[in-house]
């Protein structure tokens, strides 16, 4: 892990892979709750953790460099959310072709996979789910759809994701869910928060 300064008030932890991202995300959230770290935002992403709104980034970087995240704690503590999913996405045949299998095999694979929320982005409550092996990565649509309905379960790159609200989108659609993924009156407002384990189960 390498720490890069970002502007006057932030640090970027450049990690070696998603497991280290999750370990550092959990460690930094724990340290902040314990009062060891002052930060407004701790934002995990694909290969980094951003720590923003830090009063003294140089001092914080020195402290963080001395910490060792406990990856085991991060993987066993997480809550599991079961997402009732109907597998009727328009792009299932395209995914099957990319994977070199038939559509029922794609569905079976998605049903069996234990996903984890690696990070959120793109839209409030949009979670990037890891769990599929790298060799099953799929490309985005060359021309994004102008409107993808809320609840659409989709794949892009190595990730699965669920659109919390209707929006334009280029991910390959494999199914849909009625589960509400973002509700400003809920605490937390996002159903799928970083670190959460996710199963795409039959309704």
């Amino acid at each position: 892990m390498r720490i890069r300064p970002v502007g006057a008030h932030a640090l970027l932890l450049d990690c070696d892979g998603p497991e280290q991202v999750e370990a550092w995300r959990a460690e930094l959230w724990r340290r902040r709750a314990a009062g060891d770290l002052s930060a407004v935002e701790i934002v995990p992403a694909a290969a980094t953790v951003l720590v923003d709104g830090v009063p003294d980034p140089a001092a914080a970087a020195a402290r963080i460099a001395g910490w060792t995240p406990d990856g085991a704690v991060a993987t066993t503590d997480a809550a599991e959310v079961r997402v009732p999913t109907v597998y009727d996405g328009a792009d299932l045949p395209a995914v099957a072709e990319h994977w070199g299998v038939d559509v029922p095999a794609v569905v079976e694979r998605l049903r069996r996979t234990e996903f984890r929320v690696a990070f959120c982005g793109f839209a409030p409550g949009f979670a990037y789910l890891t769990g599929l092996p790298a060799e099953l990565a799929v490309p985005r649509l060359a021309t994004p759809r102008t409107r993808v309905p809320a609840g659409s379960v989709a794949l892009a790159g190595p990730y699965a994701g669920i659109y919390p609200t209707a929006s334009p989108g280029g991910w390959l659609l494999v199914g849909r869910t009625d589960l509400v993924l973002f509700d400003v009156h809920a605490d937390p407002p996002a159903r799928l928060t970083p670190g959460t384990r996710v199963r795409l189960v039959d309704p």
Partner: protein
Amino acid sequence: MIEVLRAGALTTVQDQGRPGWAHLGVPRSGALDPAALRLANRLVGNPEHAAGLEITLTGCELRFTRAVTVALTGAEVDVLVERRPAETPPGGGPSVERRPGDTGRPLSLPAGATLRIGPARAGVRSWLAVSGGIAVEPVLGSRATDTLSGLGPPPLRDGARLPVGAPTGPPAPVDLTVAPAVPAGLRLALRPGPRQDWFTSAALDLLLRTAYAISPASNRVGARLAGAALPRAVAGELPSEGLVLGAVQVPPDGQPLIFLADHPTTGGYPVIGVVDDVTPLAQARPGTTVTFHGPQR
């Protein structure tokens, strides 16, 4: 209650934004110049975090159903207060009283008064505080309109009505505050990184030594710049990573973009540097010249 007679090009409810939710994909949002809105709030006796209006370029017209104190900060604009007397004066006479108002000081408006805020003579955005604050329902601790995610109230439309809260304090005993003049060109302090190594060594030199112009495609999400394209040393896509306010992101066309309050929480184009203070960009019209300098000067 405020009745919106003319909403203008883009008038939104803003406050100090909703920080602390970036890990769920929720942008910070809030006034593009938070200090200018805080000043307007202090002038009318509001707490600094109260919600006001951010008015863009073309002004707007508002009618207040009850007596309020208002204050306007930001761009250079003409202000007119109109009041229709309850009874027509005997023997006719003007049926509407008009008086000019000032920016940067509390203005006391009687019930039923109309506030006409003209187009910006210099700068782009004004912030209007109303005693009691704009009392729309908060979303995740903020009443700000986020133009990227759609959180918060929609931008104002002609005919819309906005609730106003109860005043919590007296207006500030201030006759006038001096507004900073809108500069012809901006000179912004920039700290390189975190991804300057994705660019050639010439790229940072170009950014620090050549002038850029504000593009008309700029908005609350970001100030887009036009000028020398910044050449990349590393091809391909950067895995998405967290973004900060003021991040200078460089898309494939090489034209930098400085992220403002409604910026996305993560992005996949490399950030060559971060601007220390983005608030001057709130007043930068298309065509305004922007230059950068390192933090040491």
